[in-house]
């Protein structure tokens, strides 16, 4: 049944024929083409679809179309009237939009607040925006933007002078479309004739299955066009981000190893698929024994999930130097503990989405992604195509954080498009996104650290089992990264660390901001507090005394340069002393609320571990006098579009305003690698620097002038000025090259690393970044609740290419660290939605003070180091250390939920 409705959207009358229960979000997006309103959960849990109906902010996913007759609806598209509104401008200036997927819902909610209350307090802003989740920003810049608070703010790119782009904070070059709703994410584009694809997934942890009569199923369901199974896959039905470990089928072959694994595809007309009940799909299941934890999976009576992986050990990483047992035995004090962490879900607000279409004999896939070339190569292999016959065009990615490095729907829509000849579109539901894509590895870790009587670390042993789930994904990376980093940025002369990736029937654990290092750092940094206590030393001073300095050798034997950890820790000193005094004063009176202060550090190597990791950047000058940057480093909100351009601009010697961007598309941008491992500013940035320099040299050579010359672009002329001499080169008179440029350059940069030997010795990374964070909080010792008061973050990023974006990364990383520490625990089968799986809301992130430390790296572009993952590493251990300072308790399993905190308090009282 259909209703004829007439209502107003953004002041314009619209008429629509819709089903009465169609969600307003669907009416706006699918009927009216207003895709600025985003859908993140379809359950009112995320607020991304917030719109205003008759003056009230609502989740459009919860409003039936039948309610709309005569209504006034306002969406993000109605916020700007030709020009951006003051609020939208403020969002750009404050860097309040990163990936942009939550931005429309936030803006609509904030605009409604400001209409009622032109100068809201921070608490009023939080109350108004508490219903919209953001996973990127950490909310602080959103609060600043709504209040238009006078903090660090960005400038118009056009106002940044030539040669001054690096270190300036131009507002993000791709920002405007994020605040108008014009950004096109994975679900925002769909060819009119596209088939919809539904995915049949395993409801069992581990099961064999047989697929029944699919022809009868198709025949019985009008509008369903075809069913595809593993038997229909033309290529090698096996993928994985690390080719030697590739083990995951695009569609399972007779046996599903985890709950949520795809076993079949149903392709059909959109209306038919929307109404489809997957319950009557012909598949019979035969459950097999399953193991959800490494301890179960390692048992001899549990068969390996993959041939050749005895004990379900995927792989292990190992680093050893000196004689740790002897060093610990001779130590003045030692501290030992074990800690467990939970599955953590990326919870980007955009579930995976995209479509495939055949263009001639080329399969084009447009979807959200962090790694277009990896998507291309894996999809091509699965579908039996040469890589150049697959073109990946990334649509805007509404948050990634590591999970969108792995392919998800790409081979699925690709298969349907190839087999049917029609475009094929797929948008994951929140449940499918959570069930089927990767998580942060749950870790089960043990360690001992020793120190001498002067407070110098003598040695450390560490071992950890990392639950890598049913398939390899990034398990090998976690196993290898952890032993390299588990010492923290501290001199540890005798050391052994082993990280093991163990298969289970749990969700696949993959990449999540830090690749296991955040978990390992919880282990190490909480032990440092115990050591300080045993030594009777100040906790911050212990860290300063042991911090790496230039010339130190790491546990891998690598000699370090450009080390800024000590400077970061020292930058926290004034705040540390103040916070300790305030806590002491606050706690003096006793009571239910106890104040605590904690500190923790991070170090993190940028790029692949001991493996090649190149990026290639191309830049050209067009006959029209524009600088065109082929920038393939996918910007998933972190800002690579802006940062890579800033670096290239200064290397070339032209202003930002001269640049045009061509972003990640495997047919037009060379491979800038994946957006992961905090590598884009460093590696793609360095490639952009080299490309800019190379282009500049070509121009200078052409003009026969020296390095000192200045170049410029004016009205179709390239100008080259040296002293009094000025040369004007008419670009239109020159013969363009095959790519259409009159001058162009392409450069590749691959960081110098070496393979690690059997003891983990070598040069795993060319560049490291460092940081330290200070957390002040209160623990309610009768309820076990934790209230964060303030966080100070000092990060050594070498050179802040764009300080505003750096702050945004720090605040966003801290928010994820807060979640890791206090609330995020993905329980497969139980928390597959955004109301049972909790991520921080705007009310859970305290004020954050950022201190930028700039110790230039000899290798990084303009001295820059990576940052994206570093920023969340210290947060959780600093919080746990502050909880311990407040209460004396040590948490054995994170997150430190109220339940766990109170249990630990009671346990300690029992011991006392």
């Amino acid at each position: 049944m259909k209703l004829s409705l007439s209502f107003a959207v953004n002041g314009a009358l619209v008429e629509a024929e819709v089903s009465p229960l169609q969600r307003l979000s669907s009416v706006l997006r699918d009927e009216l083409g207003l895709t600025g309103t985003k859908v993140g959960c379809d359950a009112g849990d995320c607020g991304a679809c917030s719109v205003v109906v008759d003056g009230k902010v609502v989740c459009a996913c919860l409003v039936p179309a039948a309610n709309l007759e005569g209504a006034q609806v306002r969406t993000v598209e109605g916020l700007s009237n030709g020009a951006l509104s003051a609020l939208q401008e403020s969002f750009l200036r404050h860097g309040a939009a990163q990936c942009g997927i939550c931005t429309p819902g936030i803006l609509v909610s904030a605009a409604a607040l400001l209409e009622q209350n032109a100068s809201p307090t921070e608490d009023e802003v939080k109350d108004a925006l508490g219903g919209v989740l953001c996973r990127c920003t950490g909310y602080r810049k959103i609060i600043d933007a709504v209040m238009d608070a006078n903090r660090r703010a960005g400038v118009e790119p056009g106002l940044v002078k030539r040669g001054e782009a690096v270190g300036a904070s131009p507002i993000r070059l791709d920002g405007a479309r994020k605040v108008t709703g014009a950004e096109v994410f994975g679900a925002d584009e769909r060819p009119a004739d596209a088939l919809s694809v539904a995915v049949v997934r395993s409801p069992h942890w581990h099961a064999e299955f047989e697929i029944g009569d699919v022809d009868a199923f198709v025949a019985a369901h009008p509008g369903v066009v075809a069913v595809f199974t593993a038997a229909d896959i033309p290529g090698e039905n096996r993928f994985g981000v690390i080719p030697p470990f590739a083990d995951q089928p695009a569609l399972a072959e007779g046996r599903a190893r985890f709950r949520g694994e795809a076993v079949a595809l149903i392709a059909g007309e959109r209306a038919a698929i929307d109404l489809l009940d997957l319950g009557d799909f012909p598949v019979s299941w035969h459950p097999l024994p399953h193991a959800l934890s490494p301890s179960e999976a390692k048992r001899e009576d549990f068969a390996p999930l993959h041939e050749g992986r005895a004990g379900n050990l995927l792989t292990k990483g190992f680093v050893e130097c000196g004689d740790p047992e002897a060093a610990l035995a001779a130590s003045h004090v030692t501290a030992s503990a074990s800690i467990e962490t939970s599955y953590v879900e990326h919870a980007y607000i955009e579930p995976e989405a995209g479509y495939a279409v055949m263009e001639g004999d080329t399969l084009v896939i447009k979807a959200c992604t962090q790694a277009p070339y990896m998507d291309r190569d894996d999809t091509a292999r699965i579908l039996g195509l040469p890589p150049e016959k697959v073109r990946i065009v990334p649509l805007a990615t509404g948050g990634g954080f590591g999970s969108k490095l792995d392919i998800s729907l790409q081979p699925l829509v690709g298969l349907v498009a190839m087999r049917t000849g029609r475009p094929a579109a797929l948008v994951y539901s929140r449940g499918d996104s959570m069930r089927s894509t990767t998580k942060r590895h749950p870790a089960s870790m043990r360690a001992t650290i020793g120190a001498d009587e002067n407070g110098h670390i003598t040695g450390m042993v560490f071992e950890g089992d990392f639950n890598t789930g049913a398939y390899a994904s990034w398990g090998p990376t976690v196993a290898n990264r952890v032993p390299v980093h588990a010492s923290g940025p501290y001199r540890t002369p005798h050391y052994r660390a082993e990280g093991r990736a163990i298969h289970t029937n749990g969700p696949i654990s993959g990449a999540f901001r830090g690749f296991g290092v955040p978990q390992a750092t919880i282990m190490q940094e909480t032990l440092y507090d115990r050591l300080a206590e045993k030594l009777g030393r100040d906790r911050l001073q212990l860290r300063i005394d042991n911090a790496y300095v230039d010339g130190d050798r790491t546990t891998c034997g690598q000699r370090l340069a450009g080390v800024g950890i000590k400077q970061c820790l020292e930058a926290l000193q004034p705040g540390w002393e103040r916070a300790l005094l305030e806590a002491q004063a606050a706690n003096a009176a006793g009571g239910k609320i106890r104040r605590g202060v904690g500190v923790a550090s991070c170090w993190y190597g940028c790029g692949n571990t001991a493996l090649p990791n190149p990026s290639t950047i191309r830049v050209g000058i067009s006959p029209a006098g524009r600088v065109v940057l082929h920038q393939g480093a996918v910007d998933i909100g972190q800002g690579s579009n802006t940062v890579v351009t800033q670096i290239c601009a200064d290397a070339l010697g032209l202003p930002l305003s001269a640049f045009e961007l061509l972003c990640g598309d495997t047919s037009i941008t060379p491979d800038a690698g994946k957006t992961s491992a905090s590598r884009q500013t460093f590696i793609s940035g360095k490639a952009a620097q080299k490309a800019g320099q190379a282009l500049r040299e070509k121009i200078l050579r052409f003009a026969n002038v020296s390095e000192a010359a200045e170049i410029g672009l004016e009205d179709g002329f390239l100008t080259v000025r040296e002293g009094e001499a000025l040369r004007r080169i008419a670009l239109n008179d020159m013969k363009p090259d095959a790519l259409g440029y009159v001058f162009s350059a392409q450069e590749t940069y691959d960081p110098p690393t070496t393979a690690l030997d059997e003891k983990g010795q070598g040069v795993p990374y060319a560049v490291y970044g460092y940081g330290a964070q200070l957390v002040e909080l209160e623990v309610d010792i009768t309820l076990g609740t934790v209230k964060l008061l303030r966080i100070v973050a000092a990060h050594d990023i070498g050179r802040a290419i764009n300080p505003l974006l750096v702050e945004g990364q720090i605040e966003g990383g801290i928010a994820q660290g807060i979640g890791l520490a206090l609330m995020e625990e993905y329980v497969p089968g139980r928390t597959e939605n955004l109301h049972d799986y909790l991520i921080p809301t705007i009310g859970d992130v305290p004020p954050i003070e950022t201190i930028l430390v700039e110790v230039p790296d000899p290798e990084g572009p303009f001295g820059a180091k990576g940052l994206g993952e570093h920023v969340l590493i210290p947060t959780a251990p600093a919080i746990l250390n502050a909880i311990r300072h407040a209460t004396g308790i040590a948490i054995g399993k994170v997150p430190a939920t109220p339940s766990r905190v109170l249990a630990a308090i009671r346990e300690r009282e029992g011991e006392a």
Partner: protein
Amino acid sequence: MDYARPTTLEEALELMRSRPWTVLAGGTDFYPALGGGPVKADVLDINSLRELKGFSRSDSHIVIGARMSWSELLEAPLPPVFDMLKQAARDVGSVQIQNVGTVAGNLCNASPAADGVPPLLALDAEVTLTSHAGKRHVPLSRFILGNRKTMREADELVTAIRVPMAACEGRSGFVKLGARRYLVISIAMAAARLVLDSGRVRGVAIAVGSCSAVARRLAGLEAVLAGASPDAVPALVAAYGFPELAPIDDVRGTASYRREAAREIVARALAQAAGEVLGGGIAA
């Protein structure tokens, strides 16, 4: 699937007489329950029933219409004893949810963690069930039978919630304990109503949610507190055994945690009702 949107209560009740329907009001539980799948049930959309809007008061009752949203409740001029219900309203999901979700729908959804149930239990609320055959008023404590189960018959519609004037005396407090600040399902919550007279507790009503399949009034504690001096209340709460509660372990907290936290938040809700300001339990 069938769909109807009656414009009069009479028409709605006539439809309900014929066969079972899923009732749609604010939609905040209806849509999430679909789990991304299509609507399969026959849906009776009550959003055109004007007579279910708003609230009224008679000599004997304050009546909350079945379509009153949480936001409308917050704006309604209600006696101070409703402050606990208003605090619960502010803690329901988010502004977006409060703007469309209805108080009555919260009762009908019958979640053990329904934010509205403890305060309404403490207000001695009754649920008005109307069918073609007539009307009955059922105490809320009897209306909810268990997790997601109520005593509403298939031909009945909840048309109102009413609170007796006798329960509108005194002041109240509400504490919701959750693991984050907004958009949070409670680990435990407590609502308390207190009437003080000449330095004694003359009336008291206490209810706890998320610590049993259905939120419970604590009749035993109420009996202990009746007639006590306000100063004695904390010690009496501390000594009470909470036999009414039967908490379970789940992802939000353990049973033993809930048992212990319930004691604390009951004490805080009572302190709020007594006029003391104590922090709530939601992590911030």
